[in-house]
């Protein structure tokens, strides 16, 4: 079963080469065998996967369509709720939390025939760029086990990279899908803000949080997004815009497409990453794209603005973990106030506490204007950079990360250094535009590198077309 795509599973099922139950059993067995090496999964949900598989097999036996994701093994990041299946968010705080409802994205995946085989490891509450902030241990990169898979959706990227799931769901607030996709050598997509409902995605920074897919090829990622996208009454920020058929026009023809390369991005990229990105740009030119340099002058302020906004929102969102309604409660506190403080002090890990502290500080009296309000204005300027750029180009191409996967432990003690690694991904997140990482080669050591493609709001179709054409060159 290893190496299957959505399409090959569909064909195999319809030809009766195998059943969905067989696919589910094999995917689960393979994932359980591989997991000690990577720690990509926090738990497996065999029963749920097999029930989904039986539903698919019954449909096929009755001559009905098994659905666009019929019989496809899917892994889901643990910050995305699955009714009845523990969703810990990589935190001690929710170590025993069994959600009473599923995320809309999960419901749509299952309604389309997808089989959820397990929940994947991630940085605690999706806060991190290396997956080292999980309360349940780091994830190892399947390509280089001494290195990080990236974060925060490290487990979901690793699961797809090691062939245990065909596709997976991650969440992206400042790069948490694109960066691990780049580090693990898979495709990762952050759709337009509002394209996929956030209902059931445990909130980190609500104005920046996205759900998006990982896959081993562009077509599969596009198919998963198509299933998840579209208005959901349970998320008032989800968009009404109609969902196009993303896979219909993946024909490899990108002649005449205008691409912009931001000069501000290329100046930070070092060594082999810069070489691989330059080579990719040449290849895109050879496909008939017109490439031009563009200016994104607000880029230098993006990290500062992003970490003000995301920590401010996080400090508010995470106020709900108070030991009363769900989650961990510290034992033996005499007063309610002590119980709150001790619960949060003992239940949260170091990075989450750091972000709550920063967010509380930047929102506090006397600092709100200098940090929070200022950051929101800079966010508007970053968005304006993109709006201006998209008046003359169809897509922007750039690196995903300044460097390939780093060693476990290499940056974990220097939070600022870790934050700086998000430079290329947070600009797109702040603007809320669709962006993705598509593999573009590997360093001489064999570490994967991803090319980032960014398009204007709701132009996913164009983004997939370019990524697919580029992928055909591999």
């Amino acid at each position: 079963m290893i190496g299957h795509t959505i399409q090959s599973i569909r064909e195999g099922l319809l030809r009766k080469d195998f059943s969905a139950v067989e696919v589910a059993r094999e995917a689960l067995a393979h994932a359980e065998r591989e997991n000690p090496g990577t720690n990509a999964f926090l738990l497996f949900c065999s029963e749920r996967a097999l029930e989904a598989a039986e539903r698919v097999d019954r449909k096929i036996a009755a001559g009905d369509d098994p659905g666009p994701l019929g019989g496809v093994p899917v892994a889901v990041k643990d910050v995305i709720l699955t009714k009845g299946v523990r969703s810990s968010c990589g935190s001690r705080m929710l170590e025993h939390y069994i959600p009473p409802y599923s995320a809309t994205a999960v419901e749509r995946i299952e309604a389309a025939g997808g089989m959820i085989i397990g929940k994947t490891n991630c940085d605690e509450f999706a806060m991190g760029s290396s997956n080292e902030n999980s309360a349940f241990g780091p994830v190892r990169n399947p390509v280089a086990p001494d290195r990080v898979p990236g974060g925060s959706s490290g487990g979901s990227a690793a699961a797809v990279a090691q062939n245990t799931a065909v596709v997976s769901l991650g969440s992206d607030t400042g790069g948490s899908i694109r960066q691990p996709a780049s580090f693990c050598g898979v495709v990762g997509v952050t759709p337009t803000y509002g394209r996929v409902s956030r209902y059931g995605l445990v909130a980190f920074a609500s104005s920046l949080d996205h759900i998006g897919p990982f896959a081993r090829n562009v077509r599969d990622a596009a198919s998963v997004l198509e299933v998840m996208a579209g208005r959901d009454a349970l998320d008032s920020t989800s968009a009404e815009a109609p969902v196009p058929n993303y896979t219909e026009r993946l024909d490899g023809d990108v002649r005449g497409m205008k691409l912009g390369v931001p000069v501000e991005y290329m100046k930070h990229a070092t060594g082999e990453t810069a070489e691989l990105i330059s080579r990719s740009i040449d290849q895109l030119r050879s496909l008939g794209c017109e490439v031009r340099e563009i200016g994104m002058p607000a880029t230098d302020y993006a990290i500062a603005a992003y970490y003000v906004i995301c920590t401010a929102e996080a400090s508010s969102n995470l106020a709900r973990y108070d030991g009363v309604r769900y989650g961990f409660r510290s034992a033996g506190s005499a007063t309610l106030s002590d119980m709150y403080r001790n619960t949060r002090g003992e239940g949260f890990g170091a990075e989450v506490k750091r972000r709550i502290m920063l967010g509380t500080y930047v929102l506090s009296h006397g600092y709100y204007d200098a940090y929070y309000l200022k950051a929101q204005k800079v966010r508007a300027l970053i968005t304006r950079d993109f709006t201006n750029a998209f008046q003359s180009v169809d897509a922007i191409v750039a690196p995903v990360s300044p460097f390939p996967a780093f060693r476990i432990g290499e940056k974990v003690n220097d939070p600022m250094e870790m934050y700086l690694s998000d430079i290329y991904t947070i600009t797109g997140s702040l603007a809320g535009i669709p962006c993705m990482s598509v593999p573009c080669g590997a360093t001489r050591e064999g570490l994967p590198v991803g090319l980032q493609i960014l398009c204007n709001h709701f132009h996913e179709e164009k983004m997939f077309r370019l990524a697919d054409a580029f992928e055909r060159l591999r």
Partner: protein
Amino acid sequence: MKLTETEVRYVANLANLSLTEDEIARMVHDLGSILEHMDRLAGIDTEGVEPMSQVLYETEETATLRPDVERAPLGNQLALANAPASGSGYFKVPKVIDR
């Protein structure tokens, strides 16, 4: 912007977060270096720029309104299912008022 230990304790108090002495020392150092980076925000001219608190795009003004119809709520039992302590259909917390 460097943070003092007193400020760290003050912010931890606002955030309802108990921190150990070691954690406080780490916070003074880490938050200081992060805020120093954030201070570069002062260097960009934002005169006349409207703050952006949400991603916006062209849509109908009523696009985010839903019909006002009744929906079944979660229900008491499910709502309490994950509570660390509950009883008689309520969440239980340590005593708040002495009587």
